[in-house]
């Protein structure tokens, strides 16, 4: 690799990459993200390489392992270029057929094409799949065509062009003004205006300053940062370099959860490649500007999403937050001015510099600009990552893009913002999603997790789930959070256990206000949100638990019983799976008998019965 010593050299490099790529050459793009890996894409990739070699096509066809385009539910997913054919749920056994039929004969393998959920019609091209067409993909635009291990793929699509533009003709103050004018707000959860944060850090006192990328993504249910870091790490890096130049920082950190091994690997490689090209390190593109980036791996602590806790961890200390009388932009890492932004925030920066603040501010709502990536998961048909403009309605995300609720079940709630957010009921489905609207209804944007729940999810159980989660993640430094969450969990356990009273709910509400008002950091301060929104919008379920000792969604174990219906034909499946041997057959075509005394309510029989003969009451 040749080191680039000026923006013009980067342009020449790009021109040569463009020239050397034959647009008519066949390329098989296979998603190598964590989701597809869980569905066996590693085998598929290997099989493609072998089959292509075996059929003597090695010179004619390129196999590219791409980043995550987001349609995880349909993994392993792949496209064939230049025809833009989209195949889904590809397994190893399908590979030979794809090679013969598509790559050699130029036909499609119809059973691997995406079936439209409404019509059942097979969709041939990636560009026509409804899941994608209804999104506005800017950050994820080329996710299925970029190999994250190859910097040239990023440069092919104009990568590092924004950095060249910034270094060539823009002063740091100009860059900050541009980001301010774009209206970009932090994507990690807080929604703080990015440009203002940069400005404070730039003007803070001190020679040494840091920029930090938060890829801790502890918010369960969110994985857009993982996907961006795994799939397009250079876009994040480019944003960081521009930010560092604007702020006047020469050292940076990427803080990645160790639970994301592929993201750690790809970010590390991206740093190395950018250094080799002279896009990172000393004298970047011959500008005289130096910037070095190190990776630091998190140890699995939700509280490290809090800026001060993250910085403590970067100093090799326990990840406890501190009070923020002084902001981290003035005194952060090693007591020096530090600018922390989330992965998605950084990835937005090159887009803004390339296309201008005006263009960016033209997308979204009055207070929230640009797009946002949501992880649409839970009880929804098309699960995966969706990138949409701010201001789109929840209904459009869940029903138009997500395809609605599977199994003819009824929508109950959507939870946004992770453990700090809240539940949003059906009557608010036409809410226009942005930072302010979500906060107004008692939830929050958070990092963009969107967990859909149907009628079989219990909202009291869900509130308990989040409190249990937060109880485990509370660092223990301040009393309201440490002890308050413990007591809240006690109360919730009583209620879901069928021993709750009306007074318990009042006490719970009191504890919620104490936590809101007195916790040291946002973990405790926002912890009541799931409980409060569940109470606000689903009070009838709480009343059923407390007054009638009944769980309407049939989730809380203490309040349900399993029964065998008359239609059971004695197929024997449940007898086999019951771990307690509580089910005994009575003879041919006779319903089996479930011994309630032995039943531990594990639900194995219910899950295994294909005839709906196991009832929950």
């Amino acid at each position, binding site marked *: 690799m040749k080191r680039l010593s000026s923006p013009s050299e980067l342009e020449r490099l790009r021109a040569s990459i463009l020239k050397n790529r034959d647009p008519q050459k066949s390329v098989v793009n296979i998603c190598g993200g*964590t*989701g597809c*890996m*869980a*569905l066996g894409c590693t085998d598929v990739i290997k099989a493609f390489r072998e089959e292509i070699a075996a059929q003597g096509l090695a010179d004619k066809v390129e196999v590219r392992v791409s980043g995550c385009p987001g349609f*995880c*539910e349909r*993994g392993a997913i792949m496209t064939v270029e230049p025809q833009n054919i989209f195949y889904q749920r590809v397994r190893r056994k399908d590979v030979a057929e794809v090679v013969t039929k598509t790559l050699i004969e130029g036909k499609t393998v119809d059973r691997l094409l995406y079936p439209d959920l409404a019509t059942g019609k097979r969709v041939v091209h990636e560009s026509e799949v409804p899941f994608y067409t209804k999104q506005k993909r800017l950050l994820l635009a080329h996710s299925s065509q970029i190999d994250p291990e190859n910097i040239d793929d990023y440069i092919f699509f104009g990568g590092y062009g924004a950095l060249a533009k910034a270094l060539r003709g823009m002063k740091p103050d100009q860059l900050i003004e541009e980001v301010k004018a774009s209206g970009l707000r932090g994507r990690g959860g807080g929604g703080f205006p990015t440009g203002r944060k940069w400005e404070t850090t730039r003007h803070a006192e001190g020679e040494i300053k840091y920029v930090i990328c938060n890829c801790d*993504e*502890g*918010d*369960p*249910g*969110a*994985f857009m940062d*993982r996907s961006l870091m795994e799939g397009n790490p250079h876009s994040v890096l480019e944003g960081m370099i521009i930010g560092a130049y604007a702020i006047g920082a020469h050292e940076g950190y990427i803080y990645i959860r*160790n*639970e*994301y*091994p592929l993201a750690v690997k790809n970010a590390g490689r991206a740093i190395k490649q950018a250094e080799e090209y002279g896009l990172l390190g000393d004298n970047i593109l011959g500008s005289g500007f130096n910037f070095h980036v190190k*990776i*630091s*791996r*998190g*140890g*699995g*602590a*939700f509280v490290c999403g809090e800026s001060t806790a993250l910085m403590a*961890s970067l100093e*090799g*200390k*326990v*990840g406890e937050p501190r009070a923020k009388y002084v902001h981290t932009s003035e005194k952060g890492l*090693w007591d020096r001015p530090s600018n922390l932004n989330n992965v998605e925030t950084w990835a937005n920066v090159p887009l803004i510099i390339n296309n201008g603040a005006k263009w960016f501010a033209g997308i979204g709502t009055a207070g929230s600009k640009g797009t946002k990536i949501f*992880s649409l*998961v*839970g*009880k929804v048909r098309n*699960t*995966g*990552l969706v990138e949409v403009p701010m201001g789109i309605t929840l209904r459009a995300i869940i029903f138009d893009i997500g395809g609605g609720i599977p199994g003819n079940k009824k929508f109950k709630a959507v*939870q946004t913002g*992770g453990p700090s957010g809240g539940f949003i009921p059906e009557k608010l489905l036409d809410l226009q999603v942005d930072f302010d609207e979500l906060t107004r209804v008692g939830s929050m944007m958070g990092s963009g*997790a969107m*967990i*859909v*729940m149907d009628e079989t*999810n219990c909202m009291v159980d*869900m509130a308990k*789930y989040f409190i249990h*989660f937060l109880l*485990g993640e509370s*660092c223990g430094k301040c009393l309201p959070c440490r002890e308050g969450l413990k007591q809240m969990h006690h109360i919730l356990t009583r209620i879901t256990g069928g021993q709750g009273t009306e007074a318990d709910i009042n006490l719970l509400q009191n504890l919620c206000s104490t936590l809101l008002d007195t916790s040291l950091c946002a973990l405790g301060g926002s912890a009541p949100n799931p409980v409060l929104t569940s109470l606000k919008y689903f009070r009838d379920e709480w009343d059923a638990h407390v007054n009638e000792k009944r769980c309407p969604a049939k989730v809380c174990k203490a309040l349900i019983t399993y029964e065998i219906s008359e239609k059971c034909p004695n197929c024997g499946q449940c007898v086999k*799976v019951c*771990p307690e041997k509580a089910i005994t057959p009575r003879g041919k075509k006779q319903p089996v008998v479930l011994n309630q005394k032995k039943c531990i309510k*594990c*639900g*194995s029989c219910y*899950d*295994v019965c294909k005839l709906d003969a196991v009832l929950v009451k």
Partner: protein
Amino acid sequence: MKVNLRQLKSTVKSITGRHNNDRGMLVSILQDLQGEYGYLPREALVEIGRTMDVPLSQVYGVATFFKAFSLVPRGRHLIQVCLGTACHVRGAEKILDTVERELGIKPGESDKDLDFSLETVNCVGACALGPIVIVDGNYSGEMKIDAVKPLLGSYNKAPAGAR
């Protein structure tokens, strides 16, 4: 489990050296060390404190604060059940109950032969495919109760000499 002290010292030296003895990299250093041993041996924590001139209390504090670290030896196979929200709404608790029953251990424990250790994790970012179980870093998505036994069974074939 007996730890070879001389070997341990050289391992610690090479890991801390790789990170330039940078105190800020303590979490990463402990990660690497756990990668070598499968857990954090007491002797290694002492050695890290000495090599990097960091108080042992701080090393111990970090090692016990973060969920990823274990101070006791773990089994040859690490089973992680994801309890992230997306997995929870799709019945991760039932999967965990089943794994617990099959192995006869609770999260945070290992079986007596040190074949399996069980842990829960809060989200591994494969939310679209929940519930997720990870064995030795290999992800299994859309887990069902009756798929637990075959999955664990496929890892149980330990060569007798390996213990």
